[in-house]
């Protein structure tokens, strides 16, 4: 508590800010340190901490999404690489940092919500960081309202509303990321406001720089925790843009100083966030150097840069593919799953189910597992030998090759026969000579797509290659469909005749590679079964790895998982839904994400009142009728722009998202909406309650309203904290809305 008090108090140092040349003069005067302590702030912080940290390690069981974030914490502890499409790594890293402080070794199986934590899991420290951020949101809300030039009373009200918001409490007491996100978002807003208020009197001072830089840092942290932070970042950029525009119009400033101002903002609000964002990934990739469960999603080159896994196999492979090389070919797109070009003894059925015929030649598929049948040999069409000559003759861009399937020694072939599932494309087969009028067409041109020059050599792992059929100019492609039973549910490979530009499904790269040595089929089979020898490692630059990982995070699509507690954005405003986070199987104690109904309703009313009043004033001002003084109008616009704007940017985009949405996605927007309540209330008291009587009535109403908010908070706190356990009747009484899903055990 003492630390908190010091943290939030204002220090005024006297005598310290003298120029350098007079450094020693301060010795002549006594050093006086005056500390101003804002008791409001201290009290709020203490209350926030108590409220969020109380009995933090209860329940000692996996609650809701802890099961999701927990697995990443464990992977961090074990330094194993993973890809999470839900967001950038900074949030996961913060949670993992909590685990690191608590000495977590990562050994816990995160498989089920409600599972008891074993003794080695430091529950308290894992949940500490989110809880701290949640607690600090309370004083931040206070500070923001003060910086917006509202009264301390209004600011105190805003902080209390945040303090007694059940949903925010639930979300911050668990190992989840929303409270961290909200903390950084509020911090960014606060520091921008501080910076803006300093702008008028003292630009380019230390304090000015500090708050400006802190804005950028907090923004990048918010974005780094969840991509949702981007919305607030954009809002701040827009506000900063408007303010800079006013600055440009300020003709008392010289051109040079305007330029300096703009450059400083550009540095702090654009360059630094980008750099910070990159640094999160740098730390992420440095920490996670071992191969793990998500390797397969990444390209071969990326996998080769991880310790273990593919790197162990590919180390020491020859780099340049030569005639006679034995290779496995991986599809670069790898959707719907990563797979390798494959063939096996079985042939295509003579007739498919729908009556179309096939060539009845050997099947060529894409197979999602490592297999000896994935090996192919690169052959020079002009020569018979299947071994690498000495010195090896490398294959270059534009060369024409034949691909021989290692185990069956048949040639990769395509012809004018419709593919099994994609009738508009050609069938790919391994050629079987049935002695009928169907000649072998097994010549393929190698086109290296990511070449630097036209004479580039085909490289293992690094080169992305298209195989263009010489006779028909069809391109070898993974269609994404999976074959029926006769094809063992493997993926279909086709020859795309009308290749419309480049698509990753047409690109292949060599993953495993060795120089073939044995001409005899028997020896070669042994050779194919033997593991490749080892020795060089491929080092990918950080930027290449970052780009790939970022791209995968953004494009990775999970199967659309419908969730029992998913909801639509329209349900959020009125809180028509809740989420049951945890349920004790014996006692029936439960934790729900459920908000303070009164606060939510008041916030909605406040938004409505704000928008109506704003439009009213705006239209009247256009007709030159000013209802409120100019400075009050400025205050009204800036506070509303921030709060309503923050609410809108954090809420409206969800209507366009197609992913599974939950109530907790609304919490950042809700925070902004709550900040609006005191803004509207103070405006109403100041400008609409003219007489003293009305003012007193209004204050009395205020007190009653605050007390009822506290009451609602107390009523729902058993569902927020998970204790005390309620009886079925009490639970039924808490079901204020029909649509709420409160778990009542059958007697």
């Amino acid at each position, binding site marked *: 508590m003492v630390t908190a008090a010091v943290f939030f108090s204002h220090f005024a140092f006297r005598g310290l800010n003298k120029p350098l040349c007079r450094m020693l003069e301060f010795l002549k005067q006594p050093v006086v340190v005056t500390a101003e302590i804002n008791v409001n702030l201290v009290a709020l912080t203490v209350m926030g901490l108590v409220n969020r940290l109380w009995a933090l390690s209860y329940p000692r069981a996996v609650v809701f999404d802890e099961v999701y974030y927990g697995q990443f914490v464990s992977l961090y502890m074990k330094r194993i690489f993973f890809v999470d499409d839900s967001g950038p790594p900074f949030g996961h890293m913060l949670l993992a940092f909590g685990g690191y402080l608590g000495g977590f070794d990562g050994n816990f199986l995160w498989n089920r919500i409600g599972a008891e934590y074993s003794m080695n899991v430091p529950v308290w420290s894992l949940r500490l960081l989110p809880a701290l951020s949640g607690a600090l949101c309370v004083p931040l809300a206070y500070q923001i309202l003060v910086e917006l030039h509202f009264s301390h009373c209004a600011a105190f009200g805003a902080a209390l509303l945040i303090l007694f918001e059940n949903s925010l409490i639930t979300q911050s007491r668990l190992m989840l990321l929303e409270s961290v996100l909200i903390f950084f978002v509020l911090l960014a807003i606060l520091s921008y406001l501080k910076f803006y208020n300093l702008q008028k009197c003292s630009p380019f001072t230390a304090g000015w720089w500090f708050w400006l830089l802190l804005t950028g840092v907090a923004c990048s942290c918010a974005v780094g925790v969840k991509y949702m932070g981007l919305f607030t970042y954009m809002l701040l950029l827009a506000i900063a843009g408007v303010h800079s525009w006013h600055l440009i*119009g300020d003709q008392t400033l010289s051109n040079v100083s*305007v330029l300096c101002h703009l450059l400083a903002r550009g540095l702090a609000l654009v360059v630094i966030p980008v750099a910070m964002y990159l640094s999160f990934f740098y730390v992420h990739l440095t920490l996670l150097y071992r191969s793990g469960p998500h390797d397969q999603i990444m390209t071969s080159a990326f996998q080769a840069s991880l310790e273990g896994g593919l790197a162990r196999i590919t180390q020491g492979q020859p780099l340049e593919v030569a005639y006679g090389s034995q290779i496995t070919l991986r599809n670069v797109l790898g*959707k719907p799953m990563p797979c390798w070009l494959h063939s096996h003894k079985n042939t295509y059925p003579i007739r498919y189910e729908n009556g179309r015929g096939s060539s009845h030649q050997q099947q060529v598929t894409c197979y999602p597992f490592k297999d000896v049948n994935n090996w192919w040999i690169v052959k020079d069409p002009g020569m018979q030998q299947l071994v690498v000559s000495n010195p090896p003759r490398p294959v270059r861009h534009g060369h024409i090759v034949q691909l021989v399937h290692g185990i069956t020694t048949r040639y990769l072939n395509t012809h004018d026969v419709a593919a099994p599932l994609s009738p508009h494309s050609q069938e790919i087969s391994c050629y079987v000579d049935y002695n009928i009028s169907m000649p072998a067409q097994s010549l393929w041109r190698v086109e290296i797509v990511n070449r630097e020059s036209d004479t580039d050599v085909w490289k293992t792992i690094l080169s992305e290659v298209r195989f263009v059929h010489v006779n028909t100019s069809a391109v070898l492609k993974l269609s994404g469909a999976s074959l029926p039973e006769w094809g063992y549910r493997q993926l279909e490979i086709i020859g795309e005749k009308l*290749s*419309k530009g480049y698509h990753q*499904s047409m690109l292949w790269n060599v993953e495993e590679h060795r120089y073939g040595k044995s001409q005899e089929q028997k020896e070669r089979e042994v050779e194919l079964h033997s593991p490749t020898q080892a020795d060089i490692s491929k080092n990918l630059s950080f930027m290449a790895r970052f780009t790939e990982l970022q791209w995968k995070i953004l494009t990775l699509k999970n199967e659309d998982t*419908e969730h029992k507690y998913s909801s639509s954005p329209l349900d959020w405003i009125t809180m028509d839904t809740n989420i049951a986070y945890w349920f004790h199987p014996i006692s029936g104690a439960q934790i729900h994400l459920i908000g303070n109904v009164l606060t939510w309703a008041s916030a909605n009313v406040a938004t409505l009142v704000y928008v109506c009043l704003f439009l009213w004033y705006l239209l009247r001002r256009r007709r*030159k009728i000013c209802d409120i003084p100019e400075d009050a109008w400025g205050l009204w616009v800036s506070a509303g722009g921030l709060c309503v704007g923050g609410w809108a940017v954090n809420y409206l985009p969800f209507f*366009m998202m*197609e992913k599974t949405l939950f109530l907790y996605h609304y919490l950042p927007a809700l925070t902004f909406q709550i900040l609006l309540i005191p803004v509207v209330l103070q405006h109403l008291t100041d400008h609409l309650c003219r007489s003293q009587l009305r003012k007193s009535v209004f204050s009395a109403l205020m007190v009653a309203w605050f007390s009822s908010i506290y009451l609602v908070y107390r009523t729902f706190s058993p569902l927020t904290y998970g204790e005390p356990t309620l009886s079925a009747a009490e639970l039924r009484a808490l079901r204020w809305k029909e649509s709420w899903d409160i778990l009542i055990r059958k007697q």
Partner: protein
Amino acid sequence: MPCEGTRLRFPPCPTARTPFPLVLCAVGPGRRRLPRVGARMTLAARCRQAESGPRCGGLRQRRPRRPAGEPSRPSPPPRAWAPLEARVGVGVWAPLASVTLLSFASRFYRLSEPPHVCWDETHFGKMGSYYINRTFFFDVHPPLGKMLIGLAGYLSGYDGTFPFQKPGDRYEHHNYIGMRGFCAFLGSCLVPFCYLTVLELSKSLSAALLAASILIFDTGCITLSQYILLDPILMFFLMGAVLSMVKYNSCADRPFSTPWWFWLSLTGVNLAGAIGVKFVGLFVVLLVGLNTVYDLWELLGDLSLSLVALGKHLLARVFCLILLPLALYTAQFAVHFAVLNKSGPGDGFFSSAFQSRLIGNNLHNVSVPEHLAYGSVITMKNLRMAGGYLHSHWHLYPEGVGARQQQVTAYLHKDLNNLWVIKKHDSNTDHLDPSHSVEFVRHGDVIRLEHKETSRNLHSHQQEAPMTRKHFQVTGYGINGTGDANDFWRIEVVGRKAGKRIKVLRSQIRLTHLATGCILGSSGKTLPKWGWEQVEVTCTPYVKETPNALWNVEDHINPKLPNISLDVLKPSFPEILLESHMVMIRGNSGLKPKENEVTSKPWHWPINYQGLRFSGVNETDYRVYLLGNPVVWWLNLVTIGLYLLMVTCAIVAMKRGVQLTAELKELFEVLLHSGGKIMLGWLLHYLPFFMMGRVLYFHHYFPAMLFSSMLTGITWDTLLKFFAGCLSCFVGRRVYTYGMLALMLLIVYSFYLFHPLSYGMVGPMASDPNSPMTGLRWLESWEF
């Protein structure tokens, strides 16, 4: 004659502030004499003087200073480019006529080639035929475009018999020129519209000519206008709306005059046309809407206008831009439904009530047994918009999706698998046996529904439904009608009392599962491939009165009951209007790209990355390839960057309080306001595509391309005027004229190079050195 020197001295840039006295200066023997003037003396005045020859020396001339803050707008000072502009007043028709002529010539040239179905003609030609044959069909676009195509075909003597089966089918003796000609006519009108719009916005003839020539000589616009497609019709209405919006804006000084009303209401008409062709027309509605809001905002700030006058303005706009288009749009649908009165391929997408309107549909003038009885064979249709029939088939739910029992889905089309038999829950007797007496089903009865083809019972249990996890799974269960207690359902009619009989079509039925208390419903979600992409059917435990959980009986077969002709509920017009919109929206969102399919991305379009094959693949074919003229498109692209740069410079200069001459101010005005409107149009017609999940094609960019071309005209005109203003009048005029000429020649030459793209290529591909297109395949992604 006083002279300052023998060397030619250019007058200072018009931004200079000091006024100079008019001094004539001798330039040297044989040269023309240039008057030297200051900034107050505008460049144009100088030029006119230069043209009229040297004045007598010593004449001092200063324009009187205007008092600051003069309320009335100063009359526009003549400019350096005045001679070019002088034609605006006099020969306004000559350039317009020549532009129109060129446009028509380029669009109608080789219109009948190729004489086979090209690309999407297979859809829109077919739909035109449907109108001629009056058969009902379903399409994701509103009807106006196809109706006009049908009308054009009808008027030109096409009889609607050509099947339009697939691209490449030869027309033979069928008359297709009428429909193509109609589209080409509308496509040709784009050019004069664009010309007039730019002329109105910039008041500069050369800007208008530049924009028009870009459209005339763009291979993409030509190709897109030459076939039976919706795009020329859409773009016609879109440009029409923009033109009339611009016109009514420039009538703003004479509100409520006849031209003002004319253009305002014409805007509304065109808006209705634009959305009536494709929903993309909404973007132009948005553009006009934003423009009107801005307009009203300006009027609101004008304190000389009384509130009553303001109200009149508001009402006029509400009437012309909201009510009128809405009425016209509705009228289109009224015509659509009136014309298409025969049953056709689109029936199954609509509700039973809707189908009963269509001649030839089995529900039209239907005569069926009125009351449900045990043993009746029925089909049940879900009451939600575009809901399907309750359906089952010989396929099981895959492993991991609930119990491995037979699938029950909702299916949009009529099918034998939609038939169900109503049976008593406790007996398996054959009610159709003549020895039994007829027993009617009554509200509140417990029944069993047996699937006719597979003899399985409609069944539900406490397993998760495949998509909506909160609901229970519905399956087909049992062998030959023998199942378990989970096959029992209580049948109820909404708003009726117990014991009443249940009516075909009119009764809204709810089926409650007896064991779990859940209600049979259709969630509207599409099942994955294993469910043949049919719609999910679930049993919802949440008792809600939504149409999702209500059904009606559509077909009803019971030989033991007398058929009664039912005067079925004829749906009212608003009902069918609403229903057809719901069906269209669902259809549009269903057009999703398949996995691993190469699709066109919005960022490809402005860089002309890849075109579309309209006809022909092989060397011997007559090949037409939809691709923009690359020179024009890249010029457009560069111009957008240039425009943004110029605007930034202009507004920063103004914000920093740089003193500008009246001339520059006027240039900026055109750049900011006129250019801004066009830029907004481009953004509105381009950016939304980045957020669309449906399949996109290259031709979706063409509306945006129209705006981009107009912007090019305005921007280059302004830029050249700016440079001309900085130089002396003589050089300035040269720069301006030659600059414009060079741009136009460039466009014409590039059209000469690329014209085979639209007028057809035969012979070897571009990769062959003998082809006429050799060396023109500048991007590897172009396929010609």
